[in-house]
């Protein structure tokens, strides 16, 4: 019976660890909340949206446990400066094209580390006098498993080519190195704990995985507009400005010729319609044009003029270097 009362953590140590957990959960909640607006991919955006609330609840559960351990409620405390630097690095990718890095930081490094740490803590928390902590650990472990599976599914979807996978891997290595320097979330060197196996259980993940952006296929456009767009895109790809000019509405001809001459100086190798919106009978068409120099996303408004579709407005909405 004596062994059943053996424990690994004192009350003070337990409270300290919990403040460290709370720091990680609270900071993660705030960072993901801030990223939602900066993340273009709908699947990742909605995933952050769902997990912000779970992380908030984790931080809250830890924060409410603190007074039961003779410590002030709802206090976060990082284990050391290196862990703060680790979290700063996790937070740092905020660019338009950096969603994979954001996902890697949370679902590839931080959450797996928290899961491993929580599992380790649960295995060592006394079953007789630490059930309140154990209950919280069981809850957060279950959530973290689900989060990681959902995050990995979206990450796999986004890492479509070798270059992206290489960049993601390099980012992961960099984060792991800083996490090891910090000694993990508890600061006691447990950053090396093996991450438990997480099967990509579709049933569990379904609640988190909302929608992966669909590959651009056939847009529901009128057939004659589709044909006009195909010809237009081909003219753009070939740099045939005289042919492009034929597609311009009379009222846009002069400004349009100037626009296409300056904005699309080089030819393009690939093109695709990536967006199509309606305003009454007009159509706003987004064309993505790719060359070795990079990509241009062009937005043009098409309307019927003299029985055929013509461009009445156009602008470049984004350029991407190669």
């Amino acid at each position, binding site marked *: 019976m004596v062994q059943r009362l053996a424990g690994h953590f004192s009350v003070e140590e337990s409270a300290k660890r919990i403040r460290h957990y709370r720091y990680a959960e609270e900071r993660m909640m705030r960072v993901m*909340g801030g990223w939602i607006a900066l993340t273009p991919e709908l699947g990742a955006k909605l995933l952050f949206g769902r997990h912000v609330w779970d992380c908030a609840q984790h931080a809250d559960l830890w924060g409410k446990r603190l007074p039961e351990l003779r410590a002030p409620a709802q206090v976060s405390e990082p284990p050391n400066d290196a862990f703060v630097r680790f979290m700063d690095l996790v937070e740092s990718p905020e660019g338009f094209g950096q969603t994979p890095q954001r996902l890697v930081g949370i679902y590839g490094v931080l959450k797996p580390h928290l899961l491993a740490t929580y599992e380790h803590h649960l295995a060592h928390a006394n079953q007789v006098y630490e059930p309140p902590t154990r209950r919280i650990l069981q809850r957060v472990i279950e959530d973290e498993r689900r989060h990681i599976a959902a995050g990995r599914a979206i990450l796999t979807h986004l890492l479509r080519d070798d270059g992206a996978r290489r960049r993601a891997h390099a980012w992961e290595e960099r984060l792991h190195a800083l996490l090891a320097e910090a000694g993990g979330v508890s600061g006691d060197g447990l950053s090396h704990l093996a991450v438990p196996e997480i099967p990509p259980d579709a049933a569990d993940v379904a609640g988190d995985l909302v929608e992966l952006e669909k590959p651009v296929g056939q847009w529901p456009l009128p057939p004659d507009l589709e044909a006009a767009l195909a010809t237009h895109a081909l003219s753009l790809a070939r740099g045939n400005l005289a042919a492009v000019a034929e597609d311009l509405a009379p009222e846009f001809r002069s400004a349009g010729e100037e626009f296409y001459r300056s904005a699309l100086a080089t030819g393009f190798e690939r093109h695709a319609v*990536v*967006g199509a919106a309606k*305003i009454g009978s007009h159509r*706003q068409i987004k064309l*993505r044009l790719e060359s070795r120099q990079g990509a241009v996303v062009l937005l043009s408004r098409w309307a019927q003029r003299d029985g055929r579709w013509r461009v009445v407005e156009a602008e470049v909405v984004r350029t991407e270097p190669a």
Partner: protein
Amino acid sequence: MDRPIAYDKLAREDRFVRMRARRVVELKLEQGLPPFPDLASRESIKERVHGIMVGELQAMEGAGRTVYDFPDAPWEFAMDMARQVWDESRHVEIYIRLLEHLDGYVGEFPETTILWRCACAEDAAARVAGVNRGLEGLACDVFNQLVHIARKIGDPILEHAVDFVLADEITHVRMGSKWLNALTEGDPERRKRAIEFQESIDERFNLGGMRREGEHEDVPISIATEARRLAGFTEEEIARLIKTTQRSSVY
């Protein structure tokens, strides 16, 4: 990350077409169309649902920014805002599914960012007053009317889904009232500025007389007085809103 971020940092996939609200209205009027979907046809309902979907998306983004932008606000405030982020993320999903139910697709109509701009106030009290009371109050009006129209045309999927969202929105307005009071306690100047911000949003979203007191079929957006009472708006506030709709300038 910057606190707050610039308006134009709002990130979207390419399938979204972003435009200024004013320009969309101009192009519709040039074509002899009503400036806002009048709910008189399935296509018009679909356009309204698309508009709501992007509104929910921006509401989620706005609430997420509030979680990030105000780390020194009370913890319970962060909890309420995090809960709102989750609610809005589910609302986005609901409206994406409703769009599919109506044979539409994400990006079928332009997105305007007028809601997002309102969600970028620098003061937390102004943000909850403007977003939770101004915009979520507007959401109560719009959803209440949509539930009614769905019931009338015999579309229980639309009716039930939107009714659950309406219940959430009422909760968000209550949160807004609670935090407007808590954050401005003992600071009447801050409270005054926050309320003025909310009123400027109310005025803007009267949409040049589109939002009015009246029967659901008779006005483009009818003010949901009962839902607003449930959400905690006072009789005086509801009366003031109705009064402002009678003097809003053309959008």
